[in-house]
């Protein structure tokens, strides 16, 4: 029965179904390092699948975006898991696609006849970064808002047409409702429309030229193994491992809770997501009217062009790493530089950060807001027009109470008013209480 259906379909569609792709052979030495490409594809599929369902409950408007994301996380069945997979999947994708690229570079697999495979791969890496950048704004948090302000400003520093480009990317002079809708459309419509054909082309080229044999073994008689099921089993095992890591990160680290975007903030210190930190850090070293545009525009453009045209610039057929000392050294320098800049960007504290009121640090206030959100204070209180006015409004609470008084009121509301209907938040840790008070004191 099954074979009759298959035969019927084969007659209609022509040729074996996926047969050519699955029933091919690959060099025997194809192994774990080669699973990085399929892991990248797998993570892309996870992003697409989780993204489709996330989009069903997401609203791309500044008034609703943050709340719709909270709704997904807290109200949708398994919504937190879904969002966790999408959130951590993005980071995992950046890591895995980077490793995949590095593997191909070290093996010299971009060399003839696989130049175009590499070039489509570079375009796909750029697409992944574009996905990361546009997706980052969507939760409309302080972090995502300000990272986008700074990120789009980078476009604005392009000589001559910068202002025009900035307006084009943001859709308006400032990052606002138009920007959010634009980024959403780009993230869920434009980029996938570019991604799908490029992935198909990339896979077709992998199939057409076959997996590159081990460097130096090109001329020898090649032992082969089957792609399906031999190599594909390895691929699936690694994909499963990646998926388990995503679940693990979601369960253990959760999704970072963040503060709602506040465009009028002057105390917030913008910082990008970790995968853009290296660039953020790099920009500190390019100073003045001459070097600044070089660091912001010229250097990144040069690196991208160099990567894209690499197979045309380096046409020596030699693929063995030992015979390519300069290429390997360049890769080493690039990896060390990326890791170093990311590390410095992560640990360097911004100098002279303006201290928010009452001597509390920015971090403490932010932690306090997290506590505020986590304990659902807005279910009974209003802050700046948001929340439910069951209890007293808190918009200016910081100017009415001292820190000690606030702490007492939170721990034991009945101490002030025996009729108080607010539950006692006596399970809060001292650190969380202190942070919460620090946050409340900023409400003036």
């Amino acid at each position: 029965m099954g074979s009759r259906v298959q035969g019927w379909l084969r007659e209609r569609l022509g040729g074996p179904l996926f047969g050519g792709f699955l029933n091919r052979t690959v060099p025997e030495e194809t192994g774990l390092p080669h699973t990085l490409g399929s892991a990248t594809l797998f993570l892309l599929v996870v992003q697409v699948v989780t993204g489709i369902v996330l989009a069903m409950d997401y609203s791309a408007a500044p008034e609703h975006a943050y709340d719709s994301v909270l709704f997904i996380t807290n109200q949708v069945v398994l919504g937190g898991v879904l969002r966790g997979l999408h959130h951590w999947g993005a980071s995992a994708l950046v890591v895995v696609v980077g490793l995949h690229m590095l593997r191909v570079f070290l093996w010299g697999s971009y060399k003839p006849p696989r130049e175009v495979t590499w070039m489509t791969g570079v375009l796909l890496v750029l697409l992944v970064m574009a996905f990361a950048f546009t997706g980052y704004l969507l939760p409309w948090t302080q972090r995502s808002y300000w990272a986008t302000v700074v990120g789009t400003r980078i476009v604005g520093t392009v000589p001559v047409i910068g202002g025009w480009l900035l307006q084009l990317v943001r859709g308006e002079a400032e990052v606002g409702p138009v920007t959010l809708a634009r980024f959403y459309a780009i993230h869920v419509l434009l980029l996938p429309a570019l991604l799908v054909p490029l992935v198909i082309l990339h896979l077709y080229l992998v199939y057409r030229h076959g997996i590159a044999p081990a460097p130096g073994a090109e001329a020898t008689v090649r032992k082969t193994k089957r792609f399906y099921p031999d190599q594909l089993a390895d691929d699936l095992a690694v994909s499963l491992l990646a998926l388990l890591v995503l679940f693990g990160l979601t369960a253990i680290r959760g999704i970072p809770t963040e503060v709602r975007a506040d465009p009028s903030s002057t105390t917030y210190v913008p910082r990008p997501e970790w995968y853009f930190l290296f660039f953020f850090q790099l920009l500190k070293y390019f100073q003045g009217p001459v070097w600044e545009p070089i660091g912001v525009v010229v250097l990144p453009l040069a690196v991208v062009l160099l990567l894209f045209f690499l197979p045309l610039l380096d046409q020596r057929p030699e693929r063995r790493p030992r015979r390519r000392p300069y290429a390997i050294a360049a890769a080493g320098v690039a990896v060390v530089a990326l890791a170093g800049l990311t590390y410095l960007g992560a640990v360097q504290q911004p100098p002279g950060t303006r201290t928010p009121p009452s001597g509390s640090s920015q971090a403490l206030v932010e932690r306090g807001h997290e506590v505020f959100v986590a304990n659902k204070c807005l279910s009974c209180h209003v802050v700046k027009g948001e929340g439910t006015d069951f209890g007293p409004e808190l918009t200016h609470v910081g100017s009415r109470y001292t820190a000690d008084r606030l702490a007492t009121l939170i721990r034991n509301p009945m101490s002030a008013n025996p009729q108080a209907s607010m539950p006692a938040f006596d399970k809060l840790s001292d650190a969380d209480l202190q942070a919460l008070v620090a946050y409340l004191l900023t409400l003036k």
Partner: protein
Amino acid sequence: MAETASAAGAADGRRGFFVRLFWALAGAIGALVGVPVVGAFLSPALRPREKAQWVAVGPVASFGPEPRLGHHVHPSQEGWVNVTAEMQVWVVERPGGRFVIFDNHCTHLGCPYHWDAAARRFICPCHNGQFDINGTVVGGPPPRPLDYYETKTEGGVLYMGAFHRGGT
């Protein structure tokens, strides 16, 4: 022989005509779809800039020679939304009662900066950009002095007007 050549020529002519026709039709279709699509996509960049209006920043008396944050409600039209966000600017009084109002975004990449009274400098926390009280760059990556607004005082109230890029 000559007949064959002329037949081939006729065929080439006919084929050439159809090749040209094909590309003309393809071009027309592409343009008909492409112009509205590309036009709508580019429209934010083609739209004329909003005209600056005078906005009150606060009573003159509330500012002094030491930089202070001025709050103002900036009414603007962002796409389909009327935004009346509270924005902030840095206000400095110059000798002779003149005021300077700096836009509170660093000219490097737009992070909000702050006044460090001890160091007598505006300091941007993102990439260590530093400006003196006149908005001149004294350290870090910013490519130009702080952006500023036109100012005027009327009836004891300080107003801010058109935006100017620093150094112009």
